[in-house]
Structures are given as structure tokens and as C-alpha cells.
């Protein structure tokens, strides 16, 4: 027997709306991807080959499941258009099935094979097979060997009583998770977890000694719980999560890669990175405030990349410009002005000392040509207060606050992208915002280095 898993979700669109960065088949049920439950079941059914039909790009899914060696089965992948019909999917994958019976799995459903019915077996795929439908669409079906249907909807399958729970809404998803965590036999806990009397801990979990765990709780790998946190009862914490001090999490799910701020009370909620979701109403708040919730992956990645692509080049430039800076300073003093700027998208402010752009003497012009005027700005870059390349540091006006909030990223920088644009295309007013939006949508760490190079060359050439 073989298995075809179609990533079709049909009308179950909630996961894409509320958890857009997670492929629906990677939704975690008790910290385990939904697809892994399907594979576990395939293993129990002695299914040796599984083909996963992806209707969306998901490198995360492929990385996690790879060729299926971890489960002792062979996994292959195929792509399908999002609107591809079931008939087309079956036709395109007929060669995979060959002459063997086929188990077809579609949609977001949870099969309760490990609870009341631990030894539950699929109905025999004899005779004409069987099919379970949901809202008129086949979702789980078994096609006997050599009886390939012309139209699976018309095929007179039986409908066996299969314990499937549809994940038709975020409410279903939440309550299924809460149910799984309370199950006494803990059949669904991931291998590698310590599973002790209602408290399941993954690897690399760091708990402050004043942290309190109220069972049942399930905490995945790489979780850090700060002092005086209270977790549970009924809390599921995903991988790479930081819960800050004095925060309580109960009857809640905190998904992977989330930071939960200090002194918060998360009850009956789902935290998905910086999204706060009410499971009962499906309301989702996108929190832009990094003190409350934020995305851990971004925060971690930034530091390392900042070191290599921002601070090290800044240090080299600082050393390179030190002599010209000191030499020109002997000829004429450096005139500066102080600006109050927005430091980040949380709208924190900082004072920045910048060279006075009104200087017109030949020493001032030479300073600009050699980028010596950037010398003092490189120090806050090294301190991590400013970026080497990025957006123009925006002064702390209300209009700029609006812009800062709307930008995808705001990196106030010593070498802003706008300096690569010809002056004739720049205005003094807000029309320049287009360049800030362009940068924030297209920035990459390598592109940043190109921008620095361009600015230096433009200044050398044009002054």
C-alpha cells in the first residue's frame, strides 16, 4: 500500500490567514507537525512509500521530513497548482501508485489513532474501498489495487467510522491541542522529550529556579523561561521561545520562534510570533511592540549578521578614515549639529551628532569627498546604536513616526541608501520616502555592502 498526502486545505483557510509563515501541514499539534502524525499512522499501517503533493513552497517542510528515513519510510515530493483538482492530482500521480492500493489523505484533519483506539486499524481496503467526505470533498480515502476510479466523488465507496477531527477553525486547532496535552497516556509526545507526570520537556530547556510549572505543560526544545514565570496548567510552548520574567502562560499555546515580554498574562490565547490570537473569535492582533511580543528568529539572526556585514566593515572604515579625519581636523574644526531621531520601529528616540551639511569651505568639501564626515557616525555603528547601511535617520516628527511604522524594516544608518540616488531625483520633502520604502523592501546584508561601495565611489567621483 502507498499513501498520497495532498496539501490541499480547501475551505480551511484560517491557518494561512492567522499563521501565514507556517505551511498548513506543519501546524503543530502538541509541538508535533500535523504531517508527522500522518506519517506515524502510515508507519503503523506498514505503508512503505508516501508522496506529498505540495501546493505551496515549503522549504521548512522538506527540511524537516527530507526523504523519510527517520520514520523508516520513503517520502517523495511533487508540486501541484493551488487550484488543481483532486482528479488532476490523482491523474498526475498515477504512476506512483502503480498497481498497489492507495491511502489518500487531504485537508487538515487529526486522526485520533493513539487515544481510545490505540490499536485502531484502517478498514480493509478490499472490495470497492472507502471514502470519508467533508463538505462534499473526499478527504480520506482508500482505493483498492487495480480499481482506479474515473471520478472519486462518484465512486460508490463506503464511509467507515474513522475518528477524524477536522481543524476547520483556529478554535478547533486550539481545543485539539488542549485536549492532547491533557491525555493521560501521553501517546502523542515527541520522542526525545522527557515525559514525567504531566510535564514534557524538550532538549535545551532553560528554567530559572523561580520559574513554576503547573502540569500539564509541554515545552519544546530551546525554550528559555526567565525568573518568576508561571507556565501552565495547559500550556504548550514551541521551540526557540523566550518567556520573559514574571509572565504567566496558562490555557495557551506559544508557537515556535516567539518572544513573550515581561509581566504579561497569556490566558486562553495563541501567540504566533508577534501575533496575538483569540482562539474563540479568531481575532488576531499584529503586535508591533517588541516589549510585548516579537519574532525570535529575526532578533537572533540580526545580531550575527550585523556583526559580519555591518560592524566589521564599519571598523575597517573607521581605521581607514582615522588619519584623514585627524589631518583635516587640524586644518579646520569639525562643525556638527545634534538631531533627535527615531532609533527603531518601537519609536524610541536617540540623539545623533551629525556633520553640519551647510559647511561650504574647501576642507568641508574634501571631508565629504573622502567620506571623512562619516567618521563620527561609525562609532554608534560599532556600538550597535546605528546601522552602517540602511535608511536615512529620520528625525522624531509625527510624520516620520508614521513612515517608520509603515516601513518593513527601519535601519537608521551612517550610509543611507538615499545617498546612492542622484540629487536631481531627491526632494527635501517627503517624496524621498519612496527610497526609504524601496530600501526596506529590498534590503539584504550583501546589498548593504554594495550600497557602501557605491556611496564611497560616488563621493570620490562627484564630490
Amino acid at each position, binding site marked *: 500500500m502507498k499513501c498520497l498526502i495532498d496539501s490541499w486545505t480547501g475551505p480551511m483557510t484560517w491557518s494561512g490567514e492567522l499563521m501565514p509563515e507556517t505551511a498548513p501541514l506543519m501546524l503543530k499539534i502538541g509541538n508535533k507537525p500535523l504531517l508527522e502524525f500522518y506519517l506515524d499512522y502510515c508507519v503503523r499501517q506498514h505503508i512503505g512509500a508516501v508522496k506529498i503533493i505540495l501546493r505551496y513552497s515549503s522549504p521548512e517542510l522538506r527540511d524537516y521530513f527530507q526523504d523519510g528515513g527517520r520514520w523508516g519510510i520513503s517520502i517523495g515530493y511533487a508540486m501541484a497548482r493551488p487550484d488543481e483538482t483532486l482528479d488532476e492530482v490523482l491523474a498526475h500521480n498515477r504512476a506512483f501508485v502503480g498497481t498497489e492500493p492507495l491511502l489518500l489523505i487531504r485537508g487538515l484533519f487529526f486522526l485520533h489513532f493513539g487515544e481510545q483506539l490505540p490499536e485502531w486499524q484502517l478498514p480493509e481496503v478490499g472490495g470497492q474501498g472507502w471514502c470519508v467526505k467533508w463538505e462534499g470533498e473526499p478527504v480520506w480515502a482508500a482505493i483498492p489495487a487495480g480499481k482506479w476510479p474515473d471520478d472519486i466523488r462518484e465512486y460508490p465507496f463506503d464511509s467507515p467510522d474513522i475518528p477524524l477531527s477536522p481543524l476547520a477553525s483556529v478554535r478547533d486547532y486550539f481545543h485539539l491541542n488542549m485536549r492532547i496535552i491533557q491525555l493521560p497516556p501521553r501517546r502523542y509526545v515527541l520522542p526525545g522529550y522527557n515525559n514525567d507526570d504531566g510535564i514534557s520537556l524538550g532538549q535545551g530547556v532553560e528554567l530559572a529556579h523561580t520559574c513554576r510549572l503547573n502540569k500539564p505543560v509541554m515545552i519544546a526544545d530551546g525554550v528559555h523561561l526567565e525568573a518568576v514565570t508561571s507556565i501552565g496548567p495547559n500550556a504548550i510552548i514551541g521551540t526557540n521561545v523566550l518567556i520573559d520574567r514574571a509572565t504567566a502562560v496558562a490555557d495557551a499555546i506559544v508557537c515556535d520562534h516567539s518572544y513573550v515580554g515581561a509581566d*504579561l*498574562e497569556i490566558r486562553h*490565547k495563541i501567540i504566533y510570533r508577534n501575533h*496575538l490570537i483569540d482562539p474563540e473569535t479568531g481575532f488576531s*492582533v499584529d*503586535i508591533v*511592540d517588541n516589549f*510585548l511580543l516579537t519574532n525570535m528568529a529575526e532578533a537572533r539572526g540580526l545580531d550575527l549578521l550585523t556583526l559580519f556585514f555591518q560592524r566589521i566593515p564599519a571598523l575597517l572604515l573607521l581605521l581607514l578614515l582615522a588619519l584623514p579625519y585627524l589631518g583635516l581636523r587640524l586644518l579646520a574644526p569639525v562643525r556638527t549639529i545634534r538631531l533627535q531621531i527615531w532609533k527603531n520601529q518601537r519609536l524610541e528616540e536617540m540623539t545623533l551628532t551629525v556633520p553640519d551639511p551647510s559647511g561650504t569651505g574647501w576642507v568641508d568639501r574634501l571631508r565629504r569627498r573622502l567620506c571623512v564626515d562619516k567618521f563620527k557616525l561609525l562609532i554608534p555603528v560599532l556600538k550597535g546604536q546605528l546601522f552602517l547601511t540602511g535608511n536615512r535617520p529620520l528625525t522624531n516628527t*509625527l510624520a516620520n513616526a508614521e513612515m517608520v*511604522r509603515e516601513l518593513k524594516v527601519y535601519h537608521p544608518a551612517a550610509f543611507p541608501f538615499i545617498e546612492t540616488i542622484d540629487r536631481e531625483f531627491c526632494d527635501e520633502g517627503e517624496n524621498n520616502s519612496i527610497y526609504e520604502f524601496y530600501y526596506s523592501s529590498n534590503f539584504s546584508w550583501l546589498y548593504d555592502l554594495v550600497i557602501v561601495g557605491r556611496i564611497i565611489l560616488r563621493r570620490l567621483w562627484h564630490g
Partner: protein
Amino acid sequence: MKTTVIPSGHAVIIAVAGRLDAASAPQLKKEFGELLHDNRSFIFDLKDMDFIDSTGLGCIVACLKSAVEADGNIKLVNLQEKPRMVFEITRAYKIFEIFDNVDTAAESYN
């Protein structure tokens, strides 16, 4: 953010509309400080406030603190769904009296 001040019987109603965040919080704090010279009982009508962040919340808490120190009070009305979730997770709902309409909040001052 836009604020509208409506004197009403025993209390002053301050209707807050739009985003209450780091950029707009100082404005609310300043306006509230001026009103606190002559008034003690306030109702913040949050019907049209569609967003609040920690600075905005801190501003409302600071207003409450100033009001209580002057023997006054602030009551909140018409808290919308999304800001309500922020009030929930920050436990701010524990320090405010929250009503679902202006009339009952005003009556509570009588």
C-alpha cells in the same frame, strides 16, 4: 490619534480615535494634564481607538495615576476587540473600571 473632549455632567469624556502609541501618547498626556487642572472624573471613550501599544497603555496608566493622586478617577468605555486583547495580556484590565457604554460609566460617578 485624535482626541475629542466632551464635558458631560459629573465627568469629562475624552474620546480617543486612531492609534495610541509612542508617537501620540505625549499628546494625550499633555491634554489630560491640562484637563486635570479643573476636573477630577474622566471617561476615556475608546470606541474609535483601533490600536494601542505598550507606550500608549503606559500613558493611560500614567493618566490614571495622576488622576488618583488628585482624588480623581478614569473609567474606560467601548474598549474594542483588538485593544482589549492587549489590555488582557498586560493585565491592565485589573486596574481600570471598564464599561460597555458611556452612560453607565457616567452614572457610576453619581
